């Protein structure tokens, strides 16, 4: 990762997919995706279930490597560097490109340790208490947990757990945060809190979010990518990128009929 540009151009592509296809075993899941994800923007991935949003998302921090049989073709690039080049260490990739999952997955540790643990291993030399507090504050969780930092992270409610997972992700300051349906298990209030948080984070991070919630996509994202799936002759479905553009345009003036149908809820 050397070719990092110095000038903070707003439209610089942080992530780029170039002819990306993903296979699970021999089955093609996503076909030939090309798109740029821009720095300090929120990009939303929308589309029907099974069209490969999560699959594509995982390509960007090589968490696909953890799935036996998953294979990526084409190029997924981070500031111009191919993430799948031979000399790239996936651990290093994930250190810079963090991820929040659909189901909250706090560690079986205290609330404090959930955040401090990875920061410590990643060599954080500052004041740990401060880092924990700041991260929890930014994830809008501090007030709820400040008196029970030593309790297990699993003692929290689902929404609190998810905010804890977000807190531990921003604690280690990745450059990009990939979020796979982070609000799908949350109530409307927690959802709004997380959306506010994302808006706040936008100035410092690049965020990609997968969501099934059209309002959410239109509320928070700058760009939106609409994916769809089509059946091949052999019967299995293959996902592909239908349309990608400014959220404004995708929701109000889509070029494709399928996009129009999907965002207006007339899909199927």
């Amino acid at each position, binding site marked *: 990762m050397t070719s990092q540009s110095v000038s903070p151009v707003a439209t610089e592509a942080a992530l780029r997919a170039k002819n990306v296809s993903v296979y699970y075993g021999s089955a093609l899941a996503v076909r030939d995706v090309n798109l740029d994800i821009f720095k300090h923007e929120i990009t939303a991935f929308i589309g029907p279930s099974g069209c490969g949003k999560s699959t594509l998302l995982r390509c960007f921090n090589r*968490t696909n490597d953890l799935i036996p049989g998953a294979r990526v073709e084409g190029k997924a690039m981070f500031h111009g560097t191919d993430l799948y080049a031979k000399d790239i260490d996936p651990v290093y990739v994930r250190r810079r490109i963090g991820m*929040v999952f659909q189901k909250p997955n*706090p560690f*079986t*540790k205290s609330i404090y340790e959930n955040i401090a*643990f*990875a920061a410590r*291993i990643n060599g954080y030399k500052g004041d740990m208490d401060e880092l924990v507090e700041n991260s929890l504050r930014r994830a809008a969780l501090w007030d709820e947990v400040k008196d029970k930092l030593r309790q297990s992270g699993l003692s929290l409610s689902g929404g609190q757990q998810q905010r804890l997972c977000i807190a531990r992700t921003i604690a*280690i300051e990745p450059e990009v945060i990939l979020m796979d349906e982070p609000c799908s298990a949350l109530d409307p209030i927690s959802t709004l809190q997380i959306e506010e948080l994302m808006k706040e984070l936008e100035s410092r991070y690049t965020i990609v979010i997968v969501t099934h919630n059209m309002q959410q996509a239109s509320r928070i994202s700058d760009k939106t990518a609409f994916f769809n799936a089509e059946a091949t002759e052999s019967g299995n479905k293959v996902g592909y990128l239908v349309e990608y553009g400014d959220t404004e345009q995708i929701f109000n003036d889509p070029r494709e009929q399928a996009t129009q149908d999907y965002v207006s809820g007339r899909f199927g």
Partner: protein
Amino acid sequence: MTTNSLPPDPNNLWRPNRGLNKRVEQAVIWLFGLFALISVATTFGIVLSLLFETVEFFKDVPLWNFLTDRQWTPLFSNPQFGILVLLSATFLTSLIALLVAVPLGLLSAIYLSEYASPKLRKWLKPALEILAGVPTVVYGYFALLLVTPFLQVFLPQLGGFNALSAGIVMGIAITPLIASLSEDAIYAVPGALRDGSYALGLTKRETIFGVVLPAALSGIVASVILAVSRAVGETMIVALAAGQNPRLGLNPFVPVMTMTAYIVQVSLGDTPAGSIAFKSIFAVGMTLFLLTLVFNIISFWFVRKFRETYE
């Protein structure tokens, strides 16, 4: 049917035969209850008979002497029954066994669940469980006829019977138990937890030791405690390879006599029933029983307290 049943629906095609089901269900409940009762009653019977003979024993030997004497000489004309003597041997052999079995078992569990390919795991796991089923008398002879002579090459002062080889071989014998149970615990840690750790830029080793093992801790500790009670209660290996010499101390090179070995010796010997030496085996058995009971309670408590519920 009772009077308050719903009116029948003449067009309904669904007529479950609940009447018969109910009777069968009752019978099954009774049958299961009977079996449960048999096992509970048997346990109670064992404990009661132990208790009865133990009380008899303590009429002759004061409890205080039993707990504090430093000699175990049941056949002397002035016998002494210092349980510490047998306890020290049991402690010593179990400790050696755990020193072997815990690292070995844990490392194999980690290897099996985290590093072995699924294909290898499919073969190794059952193999391990078969190993756990080898009769311990085989291990006993293995200790006596192979391990001791082998160790004597390096440790000339080692006796023909000794706590060291018995402990080591006992450790090998309980390794599969620890490995298999810990492996279950580690394997059951949800993949989402691992993903979460990887997504924070941690390596596989950091993920395993920092996230997966702590999540599996209660299961691992339970397996170790179970192994402790196995080691304490293990009989054939120590009876064959550790010797029959009641001796207070923690020297692993000399013959010692564990609680279980003593019970074997008296049960198989010609000690007349009703003699004080004969009654002493019940007191020793009771001690063993209480000891393993305590371990099981600790294990139960630990699992309850530290099991983290994740979905």
